[in-house]
């Protein structure tokens, strides 16, 4: 349903600083799949996500969502098909707008904005109900500015925002990386709940092999801009980190993976 066909991304092509971030990735994601993406720093995980969201232009290849070729579409155009949670909680919401205004933005995602009032009793009630499930008391603080909240609270709200309107795919970009372990676990759990409830297709980039195996239905690993392995279904159940390391070694002809944060995270 979402297919990336032989995509290449090169930054600064032809200059001494040329970086080939993605070197020929082809990936097909079916509806309802929850794919986790792991890889060491510089493997191209975030670039891959950014090509899907439209923030990075492909050097080669194309991307199709459903039947539509979205390769040339700008981020704003793709927004009705793609929703995203950023890694930095501060970048994923507007700190000078209130909680309800931020949620209203997500509520109108992908629609033509009209001159009608942005907030009304109907959508406020929906926002309140959604916020109540977080159990953080935020449903009583709809008119507080987003900037007053902590990173974890903002990330939780960003997650709720991403599911307010139906999207073909949800992109989670290391969204728990900036949070403390307890909050990270809470946000991850919430992510799984939301993905299950809304039957979303999701792509989650994570820096932790543990996390990548715990959640989702399929795991792919990137290394130096290519997919090194891709496991799902029966083969994936019961895999441990050690197994993943073996898989990596096998596919990379003996090269050993020594990224500590990937293994210990």
């Amino acid at each position, binding site marked *: 349903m979402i297919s990336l066909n032989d995509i290449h991304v090169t930054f600064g092509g032809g200059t001494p600083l040329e970086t080939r971030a993605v070197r020929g990735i082809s990936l097909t994601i079916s509806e309802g799949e929850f794919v986790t993406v792991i890889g060491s720093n510089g493997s191209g995980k975030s670039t891959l996500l950014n090509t899907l*969201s439209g*923030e990075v232009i492909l050097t080669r290849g194309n991307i199709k969502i459903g039947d539509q070729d979205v390769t040339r579409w*700008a*981020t*704003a*155009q793709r*927004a*009705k098909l793609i*929703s*995203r949670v*950023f890694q930095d909680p501060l*970048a*994923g*919401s*507007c*700190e*000078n*707008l209130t909680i309800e*205004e931020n949620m*209203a*933005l*997500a509520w*109108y*995602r*992908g*629609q033509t*904005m*009209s*001159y*009608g*009032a*942005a*907030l009304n009793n109907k959508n406020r009630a929906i926002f309140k109900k959604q916020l109540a499930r977080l159990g953080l008391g935020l449903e009583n603080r709809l008119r507080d500015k987003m900037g007053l909240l902590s990173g974890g609270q903002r990330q939780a709200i960003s997650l709720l925002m991403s599911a307010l309107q139906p999207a073909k795919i949800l992109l989670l970009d290391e969204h728990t990386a900036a949070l403390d372990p307890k909050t990270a676990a809470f946000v991850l759990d919430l992510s799984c709940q939301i993905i299950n409830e809304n039957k979303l297709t999701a792509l989650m980039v994570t820096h932790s092999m543990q996390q990548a195996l715990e959640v989702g239905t399929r795991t792919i690993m990137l290394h130096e801009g290519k997919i090194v392995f891709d496991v799902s279904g029966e083969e994936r159940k019961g895999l441990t980190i050690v197994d993943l390391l073996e898989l990596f070694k096998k596919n990379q002809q003996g090269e050993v993976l020594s990224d500590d944060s990937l293994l210990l995270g």
Partner: protein
Amino acid sequence: MSTIAALGALESGLVFALVAFGVFMSFRILEFPDLTVDGSFPLGAAVSAIMIVSGVNPWLATIAAFGAGMLAGIVTAFMNTKLGILNLLASILTMIALYSINLRIMGKPNVALLGETTVLTPTESWGMPYYMATPLAFSVVVLVVFFFLLKFLNSQLGLAMRATGANARMARSQGIHTDRMIILGMAVSNGLVGLAGSLFAQSQGSADITMGVGVIVIGLASVIGGEAIISPKTMLFALVGCIVGSILYRFAIALALNADFIGLKAQDLNLITAILVAFAIVAPKMKASISSRFSRTKQ
């Protein structure tokens, strides 16, 4: 202060409340430092003056001033969004270009409007002296603009524009075409300033090529001063703050100039403005640090 001086301050305060609205939209809503206003203010005046002197209906002339201001804003926004020129620089370029354009429009540095039919001519039959009728007429204009702006800023489109200024990357991920928002916002902002220029020229009796110098500072003084007095918790408070700030600024200037013992003269106007604006920016911070010191000593 005499009644006439006070009403004069009120009249200027109301015209420049429109400028404050414009500066609020660009500077606060879009986070776009916009110096175009130094050019779009006299542009509005020039366009209206030339049209009025040529016998065109003054209402049409005033609407044309709004349109001309919008064009100036669109040019700046275009240079920023499509040509990638830094926002401040783009606005300076437009402002400088407008100096020549305004001279071309007027044909000379000054166009007199005394004796011409302006939008204020009907107020002569209102049965009160001009120094009361004009502020009254301007309050109606300001109130109308205020209501339209408030409705707009609380609409979905207004929210999209506010998001563009608050966090453009996040706004794009929510499907907002941020380039279009910037162009729209700058158009409305400078349209309002052009309208203000037109009304100002019609009330003063002339359009002059230098009347735009320092408009950005007056606008910022009004917006920031207003925020110091009325905390901008919602769009309503923010817009009311613009009006209050603009009027208060004019009163502060009038008081400073009337206070003979200080010995200030009209040429000290810019110095007084600079001090007032600096004070308006620093005062809330001083207030906060004083009150936090009190709460510390209470413990």
